[in-house]
């Protein structure tokens, strides 16, 4: 194996000249800046969702507590789910996609930089619209999956559900646009020699997730359009009195909702598939199998939605088919877990914070995966549906799986993004507090659930044996909150005075480590020529002799104009027809301005 220093070409010497000021961030089309915007927005919503969770845990700390009234509690669990899944975890994942994919494939930007900016603004405006419901008469109260006909105008009066529909329509459109962009980027913009079977695992998982997004979000879009028409124009899609079937909502929602689970978790799998090889100083064990199992998870994810609906009574045949397909998914998932372990086996492991989080993911996700296989069996699921057992399962997967993976990625790539390390001592404190905190919070929920404690209920009476479990969970949530505060302190402190990092602080194998930290605007001075799967480890990068002419796209304000038009259109649905027409006019004007704007200066 060649030494790392010898393998790293001297890239990124060109001056990093970003314009300053707020306007430069609003009009940016640079994938790295858009990545940072996604990351910061996602982190803010992570804190909002965390506060919502903390309030619920305080309410549940003691039986018969009166800190929150039932209506507020309903709003909090609805918004907690929506915020964490769609406004925190997905955007933080999108931040990683944006920042890293072009760097990992040796490109100067994504295929459509202005569309990329549009995706971000659509997400942000949708997220703000959804959260503004707190100010205008109350947030939605029907749960993140918003089962019909709880959501009809009769049972959800007020505008909460309308904000749900309109906010998620905007944010969802943003996700589809972003995913289309990444599909084209990954298939078309790879550096010479970087065949698909040499692409880093994180980029592979981005590709799989992008396909899932473009296929899973349209059914959800249709479902919320039906709901919008039911609420505003009296159609009968989910109205039993008119012959409509509320169960159809559940189908359409979970056709989106189950792939969404993998949309959320696969980026984390991609991240630790980068972190574990680097900190074990061994190439990923069985690379093609890990790739294929990721693709298989993505594909099978579309065939299992009705396992969320076993208690509906679809019949033994349907239940058996969906149970079988669901259990099948455990195989590629297990394959991945064994390949990560095999990568570490015999490696020169360095337990830096990023690696601790990665190993934490393996442990925690395995627990969440095991309870997942339990739910896959309809008779077991009937006992567990709507109890805290399910809450325990999904948090082991989403926090223990996804969030730990995202934290791992933050420690791993922070030096690349900022040129400074995150503090290791604080990082380890962050890890151990998180690890203890989430286990204290979520492990007792298994028992509370098996003893029959229902989810989405604002309180419980004393004497049923739930007190100890709930108090433990609340204490655990407090410790988790403390861990997040340590992390925020670490972020702020390391940004200002963290230890300086060079181009390749960990000795990673992939192309992003071949350019300076932070990378220049144009990423690479020369397009790298790749000759192996771990280009910086195995004599894999060659530099062309001739210098290249570099054209970077101009900043543009049209993406934010089009997104503002879409926001106006959505808000107009609540205000009145003139506002809708204004929104359409702004959007159409923005699209024409966009189409005739010269891209390169």
């Amino acid at each position, binding site marked *: 194996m060649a030494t790392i220093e010898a393998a790293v070409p001297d890239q990124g010497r060109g001056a990093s000249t970003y314009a300053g000021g707020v306007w430069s961030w609003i009009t940016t089309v640079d994938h790295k800046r858009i990545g940072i915007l996604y990351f910061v927005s996602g982190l803010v919503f992570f804190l909002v969702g965390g506060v919502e969770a903390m309030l619920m845990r305080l309410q549940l700390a003691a039986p018969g507590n009166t800190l929150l009234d039932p209506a507020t509690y309903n709003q909090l669990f609805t918004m907690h789910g929506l915020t964490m899944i769609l406004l925190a975890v997905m955007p933080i994942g999108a931040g990683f996609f944006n920042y890293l994919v072009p760097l990992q494939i040796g490109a100067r930007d994504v295929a459509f930089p202005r569309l990329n900016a549009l995706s971000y603004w659509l997400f942000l405006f949708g997220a703000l619209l959804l959260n503004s419901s707190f100010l205008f008469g109350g947030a939605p109260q029907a749960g993140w999956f918003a089962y019909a006909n709880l959501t009809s105008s009769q049972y959800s009066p007020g505008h909460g559900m309308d904000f749900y529909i309109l906010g998620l329509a905007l944010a969802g459109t943003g996700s589809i646009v972003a995913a*289309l962009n990444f599909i*084209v980027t990954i*298939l078309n913009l790879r550096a010479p020699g970087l065949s698909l079977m040499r692409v880093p695992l994180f980029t592979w998982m981005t590709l799989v997730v992008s396909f899932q997004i473009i296929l899973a979000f349209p*059914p959800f*879009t249709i*479902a919320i359009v039906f709901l919008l028409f039911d609420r505003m124009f009296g159609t*009968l899609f989910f109205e039993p009195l008119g012959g409509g079937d509320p169960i159809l909502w559940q189908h359409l929602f979970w056709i989106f909702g189950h792939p969404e689970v993998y949309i959320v978790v696969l980026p984390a799998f991609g991240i630790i598939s980068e972190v574990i090889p680097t900190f074990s100083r061994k190439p990923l064990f069985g690379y093609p199998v890990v790739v294929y199992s990721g693709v298989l998870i993505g594909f099978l994810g579309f065939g299992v939605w009705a396992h969320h609906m076993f208690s509906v009574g679809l019949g033994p045949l349907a239940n058996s088919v969906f149970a079988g397909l669901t259990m099948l998914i455990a195989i590629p998932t297990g394959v991945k877990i064994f390949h990560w372990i095999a990568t570490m086996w015999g490696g020169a492991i360095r337990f830096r914070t990023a690696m601790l989080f990665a190993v934490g993911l393996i442990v925690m996700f395995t627990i969440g995966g095991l309870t997942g296989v339990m739910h896959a069996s309809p008779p077991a699921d009937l006992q567990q549906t709507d109890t805290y057992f399910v809450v325990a399962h999904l948090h082991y997967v989403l926090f223990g799986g996804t969030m730990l993976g995202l934290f791992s990625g933050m420690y791993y790539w922070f030096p690349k993004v900022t040129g400074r390390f995150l503090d290791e001592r604080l990082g380890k404190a962050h890890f151990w507090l998180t690890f203890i905190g989430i286990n204290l919070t979520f492990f007792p929920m298994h028992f509370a659930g098996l003893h029959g404690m229902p989810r989405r209920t604002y309180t419980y009476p004393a004497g049923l044996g739930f007190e100890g479990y709930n108090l433990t969970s609340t204490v655990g949530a407090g410790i988790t909150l403390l861990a997040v505060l340590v992390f925020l302190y670490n972020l702020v402190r390391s940004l200002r005075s963290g230890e300086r990092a060079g181009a390749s602080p960990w000795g990673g194998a992939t192309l992003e480590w071949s350019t300076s930290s932070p990378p220049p605007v144009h990423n690479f001075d020369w397009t790298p020529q790749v000759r192996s799967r771990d280009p910086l480890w195995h004599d894999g990068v060659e530099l062309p002799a001739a210098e290249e002419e570099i054209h970077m796209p101009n900043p543009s304000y049209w993406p934010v104009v089009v997104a503002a038009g879409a926001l106006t259109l959505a808000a107009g649905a609540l205000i009145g027809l003139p506002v809708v027409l204004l929104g359409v006019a702004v959007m159409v004007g923005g699209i024409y301005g966009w189409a005739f704007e010269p891209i390169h200066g």
Partner: protein
Amino acid sequence: MERTNTGVPNEKMLMWAFIGSECMLFASLIATYLTYRGRSLVGPYPEDLLNIPFITVTTFVLLMSSLTMVLALSAVQRGDARGSRVFLLLTAVLGIIFVGGQAIEFSHFAGEGLGLSRNLFSSTFFLTTGFHGAHVTVGVIWLLSLWVLTMRGRLGPESSVKVEVAGLYWHFVDVVWIVLFTVIYLMSGS
């Protein structure tokens, strides 16, 4: 043309990926239409209203617009300015006739007592065909914009990918109608 790994231009690949996404959009609409078929509690029912001869004519118009669309692309690629102008405009006009036919159909249905919220047939019919009609309308605006470019002589063979991408969208909207025509109109009696 920019270098790409696959040899396919970025814009064209973007459109195909988008079409893949649109498959799921229309699949959700069609699945809903089919699951709610024959479940309306009150009339008017599909067999009372659907006018097969009328819709066959507009279906034929939309099919022929796909022919004029490929001829437009072929003209642009050959640098035939007159052909480009004629066929782009013709395609847009055929699209307008189709949407006009849909407007006539919708208002006829409304006149017969089939308001949007009348029954499950009206809910599913208006949203499914409405989504499709909205796609055709967007396509018409797109084609007219391209037509304006040809009138100003700004759409030569070097930018034929713009027409190719618009054409892919247009043909996809056409194949969706091939399915909807069969599912909604011709299978209405069974």
